[in-house]
């Protein structure tokens, strides 16, 4: 039982960032813009967010600081993603390429600035955000142990983001228009929807969420930021596709990947797994292989937005 709780708690650390970023990706792609820059945007968000913490951790501390930092990361991510939006919407550039550029830029920038400013590459911070037990809720028998012990508010923020995002894309005017732009911009345009605007918003949302995802990924699992998010941006893309661009399926995918990550690192302490002769690399590979296999099956009639990656050009008919 204890083990089970532990796995669930650990899984949160991995799954929540994936969830947030993948949902962000969903907004970009459902609006018609492929965003493989998520990795880079995460790094950017984490970089600035963690720097923010390490600067202000003496003057303030606790959850407030964390929440502020998360906001900062979000804003930074949003701004950074504008580069991608500009290239792919105004300039009608190849979206994978401008995305790649952002991915190359972010870590280099983080290292460069960190070393130029503070001389060292890693940005250390003290973790005053850890919650060993949420007051009341933590005492609920099983549920409490699973979800309200050894956690960060991050978990709940993530869940909240998910719920809102899923609701918005399905049930709001904005969501409806966003989806239209991703599937058939011509149709949206013909009823007076401003495709460019919607797509910008989609990319920005993805940027904000990726930025948040960045810091959310670093805080629970490390004591410093070292200019990397260990490929979680790309993993998030896998999650997005695995989840077939549908938030509900993305949720499941995120947790599946999260569990795999947990097992790959914690298996040594999980008796029945420790017995197995499976090395950690296998666990590491598994999510990716699973995604490939899944893709092979669903891609023929994939639910990918029809118009994703294609710059919208009015006069094309």
């Amino acid at each position, binding site marked *: 039982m204890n083990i089970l709780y532990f796995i669930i708690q650990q899984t949160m650390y991995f799954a929540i960032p994936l969830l947030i970023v993948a949902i962000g990706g969903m907004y970009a792609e459902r609006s018609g813009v492929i965003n493989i820059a998520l990795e880079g945007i995460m790094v950017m968000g984490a970089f600035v967010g963690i720097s923010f913490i390490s600067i202000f951790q003496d003057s303030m501390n606790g959850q407030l600081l964390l929440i502020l930092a998360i906001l900062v990361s979000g804003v930074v991510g949003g701004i950074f993603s504008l580069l991608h939006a500009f290239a792919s919407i105004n300039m009608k550039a190849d979206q994978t390429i401008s995305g790649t550029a952002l991915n190359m830029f972010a870590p280099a920038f983080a290292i460069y600035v960190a070393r130029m400013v503070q001389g060292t590459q890693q940005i250390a911070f003290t973790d005053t955000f850890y919650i060993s037990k949420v007051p009341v809720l933590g005492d609920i028998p099983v549920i409490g142990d699973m979800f309200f012990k050894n956690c960060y508010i991050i978990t709940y923020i993530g869940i909240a983001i998910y719920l809102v995002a899923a609701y918005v894309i399905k049930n709001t*005017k904005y969501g409806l228009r966003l989806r239209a732009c991703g599937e058939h911009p011509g149709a949206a345009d013909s009823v*007076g929807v401003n495709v460019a605007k919607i797509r910008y918003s989609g990319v920005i949302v993805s940027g904000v969420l990726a930025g948040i995802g960045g810091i959310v990924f670093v805080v629970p699992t490390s004591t410093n930021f070292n200019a990397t998010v260990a490929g979680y941006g790309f993993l998030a893309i896998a999650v997005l596709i695995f989840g077939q661009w549908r938030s509900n399926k993305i949720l499941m995918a995120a947790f599946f990947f999260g569990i795999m990550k947990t097992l790959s690192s914690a298996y040594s302490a999980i008796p029945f797994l420790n017995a197995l002769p499976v090395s950690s690399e296998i666990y590491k590979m598994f999510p990716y292989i699973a995604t490939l296999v899944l893709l092979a099956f669903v891609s023929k009639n994939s639910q990918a937005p029809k118009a994703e990656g294609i710059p919208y050009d009015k006069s094309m008919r």
Partner: protein
Amino acid sequence: MSYVIEMNHITKQFGSFKANDDVTLQLEKGEIHALLGENGAGKSTLMSVLFGLYQPEQGEIKMNGKPVKINNPNDANELGIGMVHQHFKLVHNFTVLESIVLGRETTKIGILKMDEARKKVMELSKRYKFKIDPDAYISDITVGMQQRVEILKMLYCDNEILIFDEPTAVLIPQEISELMKVMKQLVAEGKSIIFITHKLNEIKEVANRCSVLRKGKYIGTVNVADISKEEMSEMMVGRKVNLVVNKKEATQGEPVLEVKNLTVKGKTAGKDAVKDVSFTVHKGEILCVAGIDGNGQSELIYGITGLMPIEKGQVILNGKDITKESIRQKCLDGLAHIPEDRHKDGLVLDYTLQNNLVLQTYYSDRFQKNGFLKFDEIREFAKGLIEKFDIRCGQGEDSVTRGMSGGNQQKAIIARELDRNPEIVIAVQPVRGLDVGAIEYIHKQLIAQRDAGKAVLLVSLELDEVMNLSDRIVVMYEGEIVADVNPQEITREELGLYMAGAKRGVKNEEN
């Protein structure tokens, strides 16, 4: 008297090409105003201008006498102008309801209030007997249904001026007659309709007045009541002389291409686009497949040429069964194909002209030696064709094809396909959107083939082309062949009736 809509001296260009050239259109309140013209005459473009999708280079639009600026569909909406587009603008994985409210959502703090919308949609649907299911996904409903959704989209926001761009091209007769009823009902309610179609009898049936475009130019407006179909078609096509081709009697030889019980699946799952079609093309004849857009002609050709998998049936070329053969082998066997969509299928637009001219033959020993292309050979060959077929372009064989005019692009394809001197040429709408000169030229080439004792299978949507070129006509309707006739023995009207599915001739299949 004042008009609800006046479009005065509209000119719309795409690049250097004038899709509308000083066109004027006046719509009276409560009338159905037909807009008539060949493919590429500029009808859709003109309507797109009225609907705010395109901005005209010149001209003004007046509404009830007052000039108005229509910068985008929103403005059009504000003014109560709605449009059913020729190519539907529906999102495949939206529900009918979602599709209708898109752009005019009723919301509370941004959250969709679908039930109100639903009520209104159901009312409308009842009023016009549309029987739509608001929760069905667009991808799951028939084309006819999709069109009703498009119509509902207009009615949903109480538009007064309704534009129907070729609404009937894709409908089956029953649907057409129902649509006609609806249109009458709408004008009866005081709305005004612009109705685009190629089909004269439809105009005769519902339209009050009719404006005609030709090659982007405004020809004139007439009262439908006091003009005959012939006169209308003459207005639409222009003096017959352009298109009448003088050709000597056909000398029908033995069969070249035999199509037996061919069946091809359509894009929309379930229904077949081509149903058990059989016919034969002989040496020295031009067999024309006539029919309204979207009745399975494209699929038929794709099936024959192998670009689409076929369900069942046989394709026989000079007695050899080529059904299962690769596309390349078919080509080697002497089957030439002038495709419907030259940009999609016919050309690699970013290749040079010379490369496109050898697209079907680059692998032959003439142009390659153990894997290496013989550039000089190709260049010479290209020069030759450019000379022979008088293809005009900037830097001769080195010009990038994308930069060539439509007519010359088409000529390039013709040159490539005919120069192989094939057993049979399959030409699908070979003159679509081309200028008269090009049209005449291409027609001459096809006839030359025929006179040289080769076979030609021509697919055309345009009556004149059909009537003038063909030695035999088969009419396709709903994926079936409904008539097999001799142009000398049939009038346009009859043909039109066949094409509209209103008449079915006994299939006199030979052999």
